[in-house]
């Protein structure tokens, strides 16, 4: 008979439930997310500026090249400004999302709180999920801000199908979470240097149809574009936001993102579990 029962302990903590989930979502999003982030005021200002500056930079380039406001055949008749506004909005969303968990783990390592978080009855996978909530909201805000600037300042005309947009955004987020888990595993193991996040932060801008269509890339590198979910996400989001395309109309891109998620999420979860196990064997959970 277990000692706990014979001694009458009732101190088991960590039972889950709807209230517990809501409480943890609040704690991770508001306390650890918003309160900590907003306490660095300079960072808040610079982050918002960082969201918007590229939009104006590329707009000026487009004006200089005479592409602003014109419909281009290679873009299926869309205006170039509309093309890159949506591209930049969701490239930032995906790039930040992919680096998000790795950044959180690195930050917890540096603050010395990672062991304490993993010691709690909240499972490591749940910790990662809750940790991503604030980042997802912030990145959605960033994407929304870029789209708003595109509409109000740069004259982009949106014809939005809300359902298609929501479905495409959710699938894009979920398919990026797998990559985020893989990136987090790298950081848990290597502590610094994250090839996955670096790839998404830089290369996707050129290879994923963000600033120019994938069809204009040399054939030898087009496969790179189709190795990331962002390409499929943009293929779905542009018609959903600019032409009011229905879910059925963008179904092929949605299906590809779902397949991507079905492969990368279990892979990311398995890799993270293995890496956490290895760090517990090596005693380097808290090392930074």
């Amino acid at each position, binding site marked *: 008979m277990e000692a706990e029962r014979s001694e009458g302990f009732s101190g088991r903590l960590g039972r889950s439930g709807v209230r517990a989930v809501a409480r943890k979502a609040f704690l991770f999003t508001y306390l650890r997310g918003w309160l900590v982030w907003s306490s660095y005021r300079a960072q808040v200002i610079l982050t918002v500026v960082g969201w918007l500056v590229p939009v104006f930079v590329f707009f000026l380039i487009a004006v200089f090249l005479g592409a602003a406001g014109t419909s281009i055949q290679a873009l299926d008749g869309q205006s170039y400004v509309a093309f890159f506004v949506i591209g930049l909005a969701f490239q930032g969303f995906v790039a930040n999302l992919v680096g998000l968990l790795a950044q959180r783990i690195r930050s917890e390592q540096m603050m010395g*709180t990672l062991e304490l978080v*993993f010691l709690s*009855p909240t499972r490591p996978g749940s*910790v990662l999920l809750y940790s991503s909530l604030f980042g997802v909201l912030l990145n959605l805000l960033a994407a929304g801000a870029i789209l708003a600037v595109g509409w109000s300042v740069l004259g982009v005309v949106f014809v939005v199908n809300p359902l298609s947009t929501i479905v495409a955004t959710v699938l894009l987020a979920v398919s990026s979470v797998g990559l985020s888990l893989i990136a987090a595993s790298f950081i848990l193991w290597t502590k610094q240097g994250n090839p996955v996040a670096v790839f998404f932060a830089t290369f996707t801008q050129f290879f994923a149809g963000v600033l120019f269509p994938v069809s204009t890339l040399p054939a030898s590198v087009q496969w790179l574009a189709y190795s990331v979910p962002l390409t499929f996400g943009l293929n779905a989001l542009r018609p959903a936001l600019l032409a009011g395309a229905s879910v059925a109309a963008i179904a092929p891109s949605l299906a590809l993102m779902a397949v991507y998620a079905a492969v990368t999420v279990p892979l990311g979860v398995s890799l993270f579990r293995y890496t956490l196990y290895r760090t517990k064997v090596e005693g380097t959970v808290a090392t930074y």
Partner: protein
Amino acid sequence: MNPALDVRNLGKRFPGVRPYPWAPRAPDTVALEHATFEVRPGEIFSLIGPNGAGKTTLLKILSTLLIPSEGTATILGFDLLRDEAEVRSRVALVTNSERSFYYRLSGWENLRFFCGLYNLGRSELERRLQPTAKNLGLTDEILARDYRTYSTGTQRKLQFLRAFVLETPVLFLDEPTSSLDPVSAEEIRRVIATECRDRHQTVVMSANNLIDVERLSDRVAFIHQGHLETLDEVPSTGGRVPLRLFLRAPPDEVARVLEAWAETTPGVGPFDVAARAGGVFVRLYVDDPKATLEPLLTALWEHGLVVDQIDLRPFVLEEEFLRRVDTGAEAEEEPLN
């Protein structure tokens, strides 16, 4: 009675690393070997030993932060590896690091966050907080301030508060009073001695401050070079007072003189002589130091042995600690042929 902790042959070997991919792998580091002990429910059990002996490693294994290389352990009947989630919901750990909170949040916000991970809601947290926070001198005003403004002592106290309010059946404390001033250390000891006892909480603590161990522990285990030995009770002198002398003389001669003197002098217990730092360190236990000291010094003086230092402070556990470290060091120095 079933033990709260049942540890069998627990060992931890940290794999050696390669400094460069082409370099040979460094040898593994053995941090703990064949640790076997039991801790009874409600008991305060202390781990003592030199720095690097394996105390923190053992606490981290027991709190599921490290995976052991060998052996098994159960906590309240739950297997450490197989039932990890069950174990984690029943244990709390106070580390010896101040870096375990969010610097930009207040003490209260930090408590809400970390206790929330254990599904402790706001109202329940407030209810549990009051007596312990008061006993630790953590007022509402202090808890409302940002963690980054706290002194080292207050940071440590907040760690304790976080662990105490969880009210887990098992509590692990890693050097509970390190970096605390005497008043704060006493506050912590008082909370452990009263609140943990009242709750019948099982406490396993590592300590370098042996006053903590002597004041709080029911039993002690000594860890040295990864080996653990459980002492059935906190060592005591059995009423005798430890007497320590330091002399500059050959150890053999000192031992010979002391042996002859002890045989003819009543009220003298066991003694040992160890060569230390260019001299000889003598430990002996006597019934009455006042009555014994003068004849002892005279006996040594008659043989031309002059005592440099005398120490009468009753550090019983420290004596045991030093004796064991010395024994280990001697064993280490023995030729292997």
